[in-house]
């Protein structure tokens, strides 16, 4: 909203600082490479992060813990259907997105029909999706069709294709949140569901659409990641559970709901990659790396919130 200091700025500042610190080691050599890698890998975090952001915007208690399982399931099914055959990329995409749609609807059915708290519903459902992924393919790694793999690892105008996808998606999400009626409805539902309903917002439709959106985003990320890394693996989504939540909050979205922030998610996605790279480059051990990552996350959140509460 107008008049506020920009909470998303901090994520970008932190990303920039981590970038600079890494390059400090090499006196600037490898800047292009590092930026390129950050954009490639940040893209996946950004895509799932934006989905998670939409859900978190729905208000306290709303979060999707089935993102990793959904990524894995979508990636597995898509690659299985494609079976490395050329020209099946679109078919695979359709299968992945349909998987996301199904997962999202199933999650929402649990939340709405059975009135389970979203945290528990998505956690429990994710175990089932995991089983489905195991059952469908028993962990066999099928290679993506060559054209698709080339697209996923390729670049356009010096920017990775996956980053372009994330960017387009971010643009669409931003327009949806900031300019569309749906966005207003989502933000209203996140502040006070009952008040929103009484103000005429079709809250269940909004919630359903949001849970479907996060699953579709996750499925797309799973499809791209599997294509990017040469096949789906049963554990390929694992690190995106905490990651998706971290990029939302580092990006400056309010965890209390009703307020969200697309540019912040992008900055935070880059940051999460760069900070690990920085610590790796400085040769930090696993323990130091973990402690510093945690400390930096907290520092960013404090900085962003201190700015916000003193307008």
């Amino acid at each position, binding site marked *: 909203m107008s008049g506020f200091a920009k909470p998303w700025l901090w994520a970008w500042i932190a990303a920039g600082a981590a970038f600079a610190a890494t390059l400090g080691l*090499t006196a600037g050599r490898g800047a292009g490479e590092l930026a390129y890698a950050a954009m*490639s890998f940040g893209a996946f975090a950004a895509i799932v992060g934006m989905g998670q952001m939409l859900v978190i915007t729905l208000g306290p208690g709303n979060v999707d813990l089935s993102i990793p399982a959904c990524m894995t399931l979508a990636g597995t099914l898509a690659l299985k259907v494609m079976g490395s055959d050329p020209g099946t990329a679109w078919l695979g995409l359709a299968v992945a997105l349909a998987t996301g749609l199904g997962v999202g609807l199933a999650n929402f059915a649990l939340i709405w029909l059975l009135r389970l708290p979203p945290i528990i519903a998505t956690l429990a459902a994710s175990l089932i999706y995991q089983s489905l992924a195991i059952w469908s393919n028993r962990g066999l*790694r099928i290679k993506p069709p060559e054209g698709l793999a080339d697209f996923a690892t390729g670049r356009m105008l010096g920017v990775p294709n996956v980053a372009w996808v994330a960017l387009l998606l971010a643009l669409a999400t931003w327009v949806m949140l900031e300019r569309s009626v749906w966005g207003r409805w989502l933000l209203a539902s996140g502040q006070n569901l009952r008040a929103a309903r009484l103000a005429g917002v079709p809250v269940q439709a909004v919630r359903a659409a949001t849970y479907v959106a996060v699953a579709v985003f996750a499925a797309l990320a799973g499809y791209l990641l599997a294509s*990017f890394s040469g096949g789906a693996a049963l554990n390929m989504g694992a690190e995106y559970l905490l990651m998706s939540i971290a990029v939302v909050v580092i990006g400056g979205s309010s965890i209390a709901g009703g307020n969200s922030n697309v540019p912040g998610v992008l900055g935070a996605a880059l940051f999460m990659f*760069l900070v690990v790279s920085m610590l790796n480059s400085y040769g930090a051990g696993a*323990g130091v790396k973990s402690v510093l990552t945690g400390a930096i996350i907290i520092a960013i959140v404090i900085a962003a919130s201190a700015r916000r509460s003193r307008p």
Partner: protein
Amino acid sequence: ESHLADTADKRIALSNNYAGNSWRQAMLQTWEETATQAVADGVVAAADAFTTSENQATEQAAQIQNMILQGYDAIVVNAASPSALNGAVKEACDAGVTVVSFDGIVTEPCAWRIAVDFAAMGKEEVDYLATRLPDGGKLLEIRGLAGVFVDDEISKGIHAGVDEHKQFEIVGSVHGDWAQDVAQKAVAGVLPSLPDVVGVVTQGGDGYGAAQAFEAAGRPTPLIVLGNRQDELKWWAEQRDANGYETMSLSIAPGVASLAFWVAQQILAGEEVPKDLTVPFLKITQDGLDAALESTPEGSVANVSYALDDAQSVIAAAK
């Protein structure tokens, strides 16, 4: 042969803590094949496999306790932790259950251990590099999951190897969590700040990811010691055909589960079996590559299945 009949009414359980990668899936597959055959042949009454929903020692401890309750005669366990299951394993032993651990072994003295010398495996990687790159150079190490026994052991072996071969220096070390997408990401992040690297030492399963990261960064592909996943082997074969790339693959065969099954059966049959057994690791060289590729299903891992004879010879070797 006479020992087979003695165990016809015995029941064996497999306690597994993780099913989320192709190695474990192949392991479960091998177990199932061995078990189905053994039950059909009347060797044992049952040989059921159980997997926990989370890769955690606490869940596996509970799982072992349930197996005790279910009255299994032997529990074959691939442990999430070498020591955190000791309480549950002790309880099993006290209840008269035979416990055989493999791959991820347990330190509780009452259990049997079918161990792979992970440290030796790590050292052999560097030894191999020393033969291929006598001038030495800078190495990148890709580790597994922090805080896990196997990761620490292999890494220790690698560092011991580097200490021995002074011409090598490890200039970067990242955790790839034994997942190739994670390894790819970690390597891509650290590469820009690294000088030229001549070799990559891995823990298996992450070599292909490393190769992709080098390619994406536009760097020449160094000598990467690979694991046993089919996609790694295939990539190796492609590189070999294209430019004569030469390397080696070191790993543990998931089929060691079948070895553990037979060892458990032998113990139940009353055979005298030493507590500590060793299996060799699976090594694929340039010459064996094509044969290995041929016998490995698409997308799976290179494997060896063990039979009763193998178990008997491993036992005999340890005596």
